[in-house]
């Protein structure tokens, strides 16, 4: 009696169609919602509308994660990755902007794919705020970290651990600077002023620039240091899971 065939590719990657649908949700549906909010509430409740938008964009992805029927090992590994992110955020608590969190989220996206990257990012923001305190910034952070992880998955997950480190670093720097940074800066502006102007937006971005740059540089440094050994370790664990893979229903 021969049992069990080894799975060659233990991790499902998202197919292109799914990616397009998800991207549509994020980049098309949401602007529509914003426009709707503007017309109905004659453009006064920016923060509330944007908060709704954040939640609406985080939810479908999390529901997708939910529906995909996660296996035990995926949940176990993703929770370890998230815990690493949260712990690293806590460990570097004293040094503002110098955190490996984004780097580990990107690595998760690269290795586990876009959806998982988003989940790790969103989960990291949520859980670390269990420790640091929730606030109006939580949904924004979930979204911002989630998008970083998601994009890392979309762009790099095909090659997994064979991606050149340099490319990852460039992506890391850019995504932290221009995606995470800009999302969070916009959030703080919207929170402070319910009548944002372009001028105000630019000023906030300008003042946020040094902080975002520091964050981006630290992410690049951590990616440079961590990505290779980290991906190697993850590959080893994947192989170990492959061998220990259960016999299955015969």
């Amino acid at each position, binding site marked *: 009696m021969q049992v069990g065939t080894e799975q060659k590719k233990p991790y499902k990657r998202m197919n292109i169609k799914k990616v397009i649908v998800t991207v549509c949700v994020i980049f098309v549906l949401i602007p529509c919602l914003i426009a709707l909010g503007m017309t109905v509430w004659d453009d006064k409740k920016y923060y*509330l509308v944007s908060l709704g938008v954040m939640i609406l964009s985080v939810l479908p992805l999390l529901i997708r994660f939910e529906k995909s029927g996660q296996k035990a090992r995926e949940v176990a590994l993703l929770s370890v990755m*998230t815990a690493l992110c949260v712990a690293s955020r806590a460990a570097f608590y004293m040094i503002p902007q110098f955190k490996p969190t984004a780097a580990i989220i990107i690595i998760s996206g690269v290795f586990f794919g876009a959806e998982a990257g988003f989940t790790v990012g969103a989960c990291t923001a949520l859980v670390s705020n269990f420790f640091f305190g*929730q606030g109006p910034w939580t949904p924004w952070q979930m979204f911002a970290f989630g998008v970083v992880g998601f994009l890392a998955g979309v762009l790099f997950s095909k090659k997994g651990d064979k991606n050149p480190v340099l490319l990852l670093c460039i992506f890391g720097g850019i995504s932290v600077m221009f995606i995470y940074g800009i999302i969070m800066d916009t959030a703080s502006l919207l929170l*402070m002023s319910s009548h944002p102007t372009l*001028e*105000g937006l630019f000023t906030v971005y300008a003042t946020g620039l040094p902080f975002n740059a520091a964050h981006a540089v630290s992410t690049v440094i951590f990616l440079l240091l961590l990505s290779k*050994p980290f991906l190697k370790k993850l590959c080893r*664990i994947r192989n170990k899971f492959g061998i220990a893979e259960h016999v299955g229903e015969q």
Partner: protein
Amino acid sequence: MERRDKFSSLHPLTQMLCFSYVLIMSMFVMHPVMLFISLASACIYALYLSGTKKMLSLLFAMIPVIILTVAVNMLFNHRGESILFYLSGKPVTREAMYFGFTSSLMLIAVLMWFSCYNAVMTSEKQMYLFGKLLPSFSLMLTMTLRLVPDFIRKINEISNAQKGFGAEKGSSKLKNGMSILSTAVTCALEGAVIRADSMKSRGYGCERRTQYTRFVFKSEDKTVSALLLLFGAVCAYSVIKGAVYCEFYPTFSVNGTSALSITGIFAFILFCNIPMTLNFSEDIKWQVIKSRI
């Protein structure tokens, strides 16, 4: 100064109803009176939950937020009729200043309510609420929460062990840190292999998961939720009808004298203070019980 908060012992759904309504209302209604009520109630509740010292320090920490908010609004909003002065050719208006103050009132009210939220809504309650909608995600939250302190302890243990082993000689601090991290990550990932087995062996994935909760929706939860819904609806009605409304531009004007608006504001006061009312009635009840003994 640890006091038992009656509101905390209610069902998380009731608590979430209260917090989300108050937060949304505070963000939605830019009305100084409403925001002041919201802030004052939040402060009183925070005082009860975390003591004077913590509440005051939190309030002081918000002063720069107020200044920043007012400044941002005055500098970048040039609408409004009464011009105070010109700054590098751009008008700075009184309306923008009023708006800035109202915004900052909103901001600190929101932050204050969040500080109450963080004290009342333990991670267990938040995970319960998430689990209603997203059970796997909620499971992941639980597992993460369990791993974080473990991981931090492991890092400590590894760093001590390597120090005691005496192999740090001649290697830089960075290299040392990296090797500590490397070992910790390997340990954590190895743990995941066993944890996955342990999950499978306890039936994970062979049935749709249910969520066990220790929270029961009691009759007092029903009463409190009904009250919250009633006050909330009255207040929301008067807001939607335009009875509680404040205009900033072009001139500052507040409406809030009609019967409907006063009813709405009164309902909001009642709503915001339900947690404290519960606490006081509980305190009185205990006083009575004590005096009988």
